[in-house]
């Protein structure tokens, strides 16, 4: 199977002040695949995903060593334009966080940020993104409604549509369904499986069934290390490491 490396992480160490949260992590994320991060709380999954679009820049006293490359280029190099990096690597958060604006303005915010002013062009992007996020039919008749007035599951799909509207190459999802009910969760899982045809997806999840259902590859984290990363099928049926085996069989975590 020929695969292209989309993101390559090498020997990444990360500190919050004096606390070392990642101890030299290596990771490969392949193009147009879903990579899932699993592991117990506080093991570094969310920390690592935040380094991939440099959201950790917002955290005070956070410092890193090692490299993160996107298409072979170091994203921490001085030459990288941060806003452009975040346009290429989008993110969906644990709690749905739509802006307290209309649904339309939520989706149009990203494109407008990157200079698209033309109304018909924006209309097109909004429709396309909402369709991609499988929520167009539910909201098409009230795009001017405040995005906070719809249900949590719908809000999360609005957030996904909002992230897609800037046409990212990679979509990072930090436990996107942990705050949602089972029906919304399954809708989002279907949606994510659909999206991998066009996007490279990285997803943190607490839910091992979710990882095994939808991901192509899985990385198992423990105490700031990646213990094992492989094909999801292999991780869940025949892991190489005993810690992985213990975790997926529910012996801890």
């Amino acid at each position, binding site marked *: 199977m020929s695969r292209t490396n989309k993101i390559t992480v090498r020997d990444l160490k990360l500190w919050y002040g004096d606390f070392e949260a990642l101890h030299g992590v290596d990771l490969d994320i392949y193009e147009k695949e879903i990579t899932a991060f699993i592991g117990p709380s506080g093991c570094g999954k969310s920390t690592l995903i935040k380094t991939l679009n440099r959201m950790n820049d917002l955290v005070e006293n956070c410092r890193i060593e090692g490299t993160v490359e996107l298409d072979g280029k170091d994203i921490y190099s001085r030459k990288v334009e941060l*806003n452009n*990096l975040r*346009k290429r690597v*989008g993110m969906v958060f644990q709690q749905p*966080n739509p*802006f307290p604006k209309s649904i339309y303005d939520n989706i149009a*915010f*990203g494109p407008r940020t990157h200079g698209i002013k033309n109304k018909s062009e924006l209309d097109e992007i909004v429709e396309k993104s909402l369709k991609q996020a499988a929520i167009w039919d539910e909201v098409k008749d009230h795009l001017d409604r405040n995005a906070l007035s719809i249900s949590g599951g719908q809000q999360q799909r609005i957030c996904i549509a909002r992230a897609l509207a800037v046409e990212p190459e990679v979509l990072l999802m930090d436990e996107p369904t942990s705050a949602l009910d089972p029906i919304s969760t399954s809708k989002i899982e279907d949606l994510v499986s659909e999206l991998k045809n066009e996007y490279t997806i990285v997803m943190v999840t607490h839910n091992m069934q979710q990882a095994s259902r939808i991901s192509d590859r899985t990385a198992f984290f423990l105490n700031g290390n990646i213990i094992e990363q492989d094909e999801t099928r292999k991780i869940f049926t025949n892991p190489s490491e005993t810690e992985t085996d213990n975790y997926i069989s529910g012996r801890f975590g």
Partner: protein
Amino acid sequence: MVSKLMKGLVYASSVFTFGMLGYLVIYILINGVRFLTPSLFSWQYSTSNVSMMPALMTTLMVVAGTLLIATPIGVFTGFYLVDYADRKNPVVRAVGMATDTLAGIPSIIYGLFGMLFFVIFLEFQFSLIAGILTVTIMSLPVIIRATEEALIATGMPIRQASYALGAGKLRTLFKVVLPVAMPGILSGVILATGRIVGETAALMFTLGTATNLPGSLFASGRTLSLHMYILSQEGRHVNEAYATAVVLLVFVLVINALSTLVSKRLAGGGK
């Protein structure tokens, strides 16, 4: 038993608070309204008509002038403190501490400072500009604190969402955070307005007490509260002082109603 007692206490204190306010308002209305004569609103002040019209206009001028200077400075300081400053920076801490200290200083101290600095040292004399600058310093902490609180209350999630879409700091602040924080900032500005309208001590030695409308920024005047203070202090126009109080009261009530209306409108719109 205890909960019943507590309930009674809470009930009693709310009745007391509301009763006091009601008593105050009714007392002023009864003693003032009947002395509201057209001559009190004459454009020209004289010792016989003791018109409050010049004072009313001067109040508006002082409020407008102060807000014009204090709002941008206060709001931008709030922006800086919340979204730009490194919280551990000693300069930032100093600004925060200065804000708190400024808020706690009795207004007569502002008056004396304004007199020594603006009136005497800068040779502004008793003037509109000296008065405005003095109450500007006084209202800054109110506006800064309100801005800070409103910005903090908007929370990290919507900021993160904006940054994650590739928006910069400025765009995030103005397009995402500010619309949400606006009602809070505005209520701070209106609170400051209330303080300015009610101020006497800080203005007496800076704005002065001239009876007519100030013809320029460097002319003296008096605000409504100051006018009322002087009338009642002189003791010869106590009835007119009550009438002035009625107008002042209406003024403050209108400001409050306006603030409620505006923040409701803004919060409800949410576009």
